[in-house]
């Protein structure tokens, strides 16, 4: 690469940079403007702040909850449940998908069941799960697993089955076993699918955890939301939702960083 960039090229680069800046500025403006209008509308009594709360009230509550440590307690519980549910759902899902890839017979046998389970809204299973497993962390974690596991199995199995036949043949011509086909081709080939499944599963696990907490918990972000709703403390509900959005975005970001690390060969 040469260091002397032509005039035209530097203009092009400048244009790109400007566009990027503009996008960022507009993004921030939307947020500020939205919050500002909300605050203003509440202060001028254009909206009923009993039903909507308003940003400065939410912020005050946030400071209060942070000071007495309640916030971290609830957040820690929900994050713990989500991470465990997410990891268990993903790992179990991948293992089952490997099993289906290994045995064509069982893949065909289980196919209609998977299709049915996939179209079923998994949150409908939450009450059953909680009765069977228990109304504590374990019930909530298992709920989170049920939400993410079926889609993980299906996505991963499709990816495993779409490996080029000749690539498998190549391993076989070197005298490779089925386990080697799995390790050398099928799994590495499916890493991009695995990462995109992880991204989806983060959101799904949160769905499971929040629904679980709605139903039974005595702590967690889902509990705060339900409690806030029941006693009409809308500032509490709003705060919880904002925190939820921030944390799940953060988790998504972590996966994206992992992605950059693991799939260098794709760029």
């Amino acid at each position, binding site marked *: 690469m040469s260091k002397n960039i032509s005039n035209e090229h530097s203009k092009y680069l400048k244009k790109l940079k400007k566009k990027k800046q503009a996008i960022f500025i507009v993004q921030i403006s939307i947020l500020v403007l939205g919050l500002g209008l909300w605050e203003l509308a509440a202060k001028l009594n254009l909206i009923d702040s009993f039903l909507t709360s308003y940003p400065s009230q939410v912020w005050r509550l946030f400071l209060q909850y942070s000071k007495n440590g309640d916030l971290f307690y609830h957040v820690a519980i929900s994050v713990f449940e989500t991470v465990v549910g997410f990891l268990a759902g993903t790992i179990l899902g991948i293992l089952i998908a490997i099993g289906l890839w290994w045995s064509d017979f069982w893949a065909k046998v289980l196919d209609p069941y998977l299709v049915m389970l996939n179209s079923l809204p998994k949150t409908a299973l939450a009450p059953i799960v909680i009765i069977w497993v228990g109304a504590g962390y374990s019930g909530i974690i298992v709920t989170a697993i049920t939400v993410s596991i079926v889609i993980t199995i299906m996505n991963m199995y499709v990816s495993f089955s779409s490996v*080029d036949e000749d690539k498998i043949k190549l391993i*076989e011509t*070197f*005298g490779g076993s089925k386990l*080697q086909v799995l390790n050398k081709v099928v799994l590495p080939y499916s890493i991009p699918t695995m990462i995109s499944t992880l991204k989806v599963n983060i959101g799904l696990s949160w769905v499971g955890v929040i629904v679980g907490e709605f139903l039974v918990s005595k702590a967690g972000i889902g509990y705060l939301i339900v409690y806030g709703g029941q006693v009409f403390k809308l500032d509490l509900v709003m705060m919880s939702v904002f925190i939820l959005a921030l944390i799940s975005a953060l988790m998504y970001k972590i996966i994206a960083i992992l992605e950059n690390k693991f799939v260098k*060969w794709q760029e």
Partner: protein
Amino acid sequence: MGKEKTVEVKNLKMVYHTISGETEAIKDISFSVFEGEILGIVGPSGCGKSTLLSIIAGLISPSSGEVLVNGQKVEKPSKNIGYMFQRDHLFEWRTILQNVLLGLEIMGKVDETSYKYAEDLLDNYGLGDFKNMYPRQLSGGMRQRVALIRTLIVEPNLLLLDEPFSALDYQTRLAIADEIGIILKKEKKTALLVTHDISEAISLSDRIIILSNRPATIKDTITIELSCPNGIRTPIKCREAPEFRYYFNKIWKELDVHV
């Protein structure tokens, strides 16, 4: 050419079964490949050329008949046999060096020496600077060369080439065919080259088998003797040999192509 038979194919027959019926792909084929020889196999498309290679490689078993490689019956893939595909099938997630080492890795034979050997081979074939790159950073011709090294590094004494140049553009194809032909002769490898490109078959092979339409039988066997200019026998130079046209027309007629 030594008179040792590296491959012996005896009365091979192959029938495929599907729900809609059965297809006879190969009907009674017998031939031998001698040590150090490159045997070309040409035939109309869909005549079972690739099936034949898969059987010799031990990937599928024939309906009847048998294949001997180095005097031993082929029942499963063996490290004595190297297989090259139409496409290079380099693994995108591995660097060039890691791709080259794939076969040794599967056989559990990667050590200091093999690393050194792999690097030497890459250097020899002009790919030394690319060893830490990923396949997508290489051109089609370079990728196919890497695929050849991946096959050669396990030191097979028989190479099965299944239209190994057909995925390349024309210029690259000529250059790579030439290069691989020279390498095969230099390393004194015995090879079976399946192709539908008549010129390619003539320029690379010592002998050519012409297969009929499905179910495949051997229509003719032609020994190629080209008087290459200046006595340099490289595939591209051989295309200038006066006998080239004669062989081309002969094979073309035998193939009996109707469109």
